[in-house]
């Protein structure tokens, strides 16, 4: 069975006799969007991506019964038949149709090279254009993602309730995060992170002024850092424009250039700085 014909059409079904077979079969497949685009496969390959990332961990912890039959259906997206019951599995993207359209435009159209997520919503940024929002400070990106996922959950459950979702013994709604916003929960916390957390916790205990000061540490400091980086890039852009005819980018030693950038703190800075390496000087 090839990658493209894996329970692709309604009525297609596959049976896994045991955990090993499931992991061997699903684990060897790449349902990522990158692979999907490269192979020119249908967009709803994302459903299989979500199912794969749901079933393999479930099986790893012994939460699945075997034999397990997966059947592709129109509504819900999949039926899982185990010896004692049937599960309905519906898969939904977190992004709205409007955002999907803009994301597709950004991939195809050079005039709209980037989708910038902001605290308020999203907007298209032309190729080479500057980002206009303030960016996310502190935990704002986490809150924003939580809001977006919550909105997607509300939208989908409302439509599913209208369609009578819940006919099966178990019903699963899988939300596939298609925003691409990076929370990076696995990022190893550095000594600097722990120090900031400890200082914030200690300061916030001071009656009256403690909480505002803790907020200053958590919110203003990263915000100020981003402003510094943005100012620096604007000044660099201005300087390069001044020196335009005297510049020869082709002759630049790229290693030296990268090193100088790092030394200037642009690539090796705080978690909120570009690059994302461990903080060198924060």
């Amino acid at each position, binding site marked *: 069975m090839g990658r493209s014909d894996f329970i692709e059409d309604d009525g297609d079904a596959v049976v896994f006799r045991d955990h090993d077979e499931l992991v061997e079969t699903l684990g060897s497949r790449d349902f990522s969007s990158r692979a999907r685009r490269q192979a020119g496969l249908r967009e709803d390959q994302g459903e299989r991506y979500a199912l794969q990332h749901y079933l393999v961990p479930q099986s790893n912890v012994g939460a699945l019964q075997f034999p397990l039959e997966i059947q592709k259906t129109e509504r819900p997206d999949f039926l899982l038949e185990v010896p004692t019951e049937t599960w309905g599995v519906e898969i939904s993207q977190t992004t709205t149709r409007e955002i999907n359209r803009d994301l597709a435009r950004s991939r195809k159209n050079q005039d709209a090279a980037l989708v910038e997520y902001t605290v308020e919503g999203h907007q298209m940024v032309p190729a080479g254009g500057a980002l206009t929002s303030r960016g996310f400070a502190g935990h704002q990106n986490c809150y924003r993602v939580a809001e977006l996922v919550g909105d997607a959950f509300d939208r989908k459950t409302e439509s599913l309730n209208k369609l009578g979702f819940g006919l099966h013994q178990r019903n699963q709604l899988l939300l596939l995060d298609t925003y691409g916003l990076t929370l990076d929960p696995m990022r190893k916390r550095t000594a600097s992170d722990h120090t900031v957390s400890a200082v914030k916790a200690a300061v916030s205990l001071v009656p009256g002024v403690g909480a505002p000061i803790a907020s200053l540490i958590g919110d203003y400091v990263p915000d100020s850092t981003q402003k510094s980086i943005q*100012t*620096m890039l604007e000044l660099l852009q201005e300087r*390069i424009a001044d*020196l335009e005819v005297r510049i*020869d980018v082709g002759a630049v030693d790229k290693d030296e*250039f990268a090193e*100088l950038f790092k*030394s*200037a703190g*642009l690539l090796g800075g705080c978690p909120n700085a570009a690059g994302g390496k461990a903080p060198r000087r924060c």
Partner: protein
Amino acid sequence: MVVRTRQEAKLRGAANLIANLLLKEDDEAKLSYIELDHYVHCLDQLSSGAIEVLVEAYRAACATRSPDFSEDVRIDFSDIQARMPESGPSLLMGLVGELNAVNILHLTGAPGIVTPGYANYPVFLTPMGVGFVSHVLELVTQGD
């Protein structure tokens, strides 16, 4: 260093140094990578007060008779103090000490007879200090 301060002089200095690396090989303003790297590290280490002291030391040096910037130019601590009266001698000497640590200013030590407030301490503006002022802070090209 960019992530540490939003003071524009330092950010502009960092931008100038990065831009300098992009200059054509035959550009007379082009610095070697070693110089650029050192200046970036100086910029990172120096406080905003120390940079202000350097600017005033440079102006004081310019005010001396026919300064030859290819060599150390001597001024007195009191010359800087006179230009920054709002800072006490102790703080000012601390800031001069920062610049001395990276050889942008050079302190030779206490004179034989010491006057109050370090006034007669000799302070030398080094060629590297002049280079820092011209390439990083760009005061020379702006006619300061």
